[in-house]
């Protein structure tokens, strides 16, 4: 399946991309992270500290164990600091 991936804040800076489209068969968000890590050093560095990373599937905050089935948009970002 094709998934649009978005990166925000320092994740965007470390990956060096604001977004990318990937073809993946990953079952969960965590599986997708493993695939992305294997891409190159930038991705590996970005996903080094998973405690500081949150994931949203189709714009809803989710656990990394959440299934990707039917999901079109995945976003990775650090804890939010608005307000």
């Amino acid at each position, binding site marked *: 399946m094709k998934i649009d991936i978005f990166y925000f*804040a320092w994740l965007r800076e470390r990956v060096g991309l604001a977004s990318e489209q990937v073809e993946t068969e990953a079952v969960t968000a965590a599986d997708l992270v493993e695939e992305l890590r294997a891409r190159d050093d930038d991705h590996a560095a970005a996903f080094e500290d998973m405690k500081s990373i949150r994931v949203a599937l189709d*714009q809803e905050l989710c656990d990394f164990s959440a299934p990707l089935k039917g999901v079109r948009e995945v*976003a990775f970002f*650090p804890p*939010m*600091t*608005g*307000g």
Partner: protein
Amino acid sequence: MSVRVQREDFDLGVELTTLRSGRHEIGALVSFTGLVRELADGAPISGMELEHYPGMTERALRQIEIDAAARWPLQASLIIHRYGPLAPGDQIMMVATASAHRQVAFEAAEFLMDYLKSRAPFWKKEQTGSGGHWVDARTTDEAALQRWAASPASKK
């Protein structure tokens, strides 16, 4: 109820006047305004960049407002959050809540702020003499959510 995510500044006085205009069942109006501080951990900042996740931001803020309206008898509420470049002293965001009684308005405003801080996809990057720094989330902000999980709605 309304949510706005915008680059431009807002007029706090006009927003509060509009919110309560002609609504004579409102007895209590609470507002919170977040401002850019000139100091970040003691170091002077020259500016700040606010990044957000267009689409998810509006969804998350609307959901927070819906959750507040389900817990408290609110007559009106408003969330405005800016993004883009900001300078010290600039307004970052505001929330406002209107109800018949003060405790409801205060609690709902704090609820909106607590959830907005930890659940709305905004990220702050501060510019200091040593470059740009992404602001760390405070553990106290995540902890602040606990009190709403623990206590049932106070419907007064």
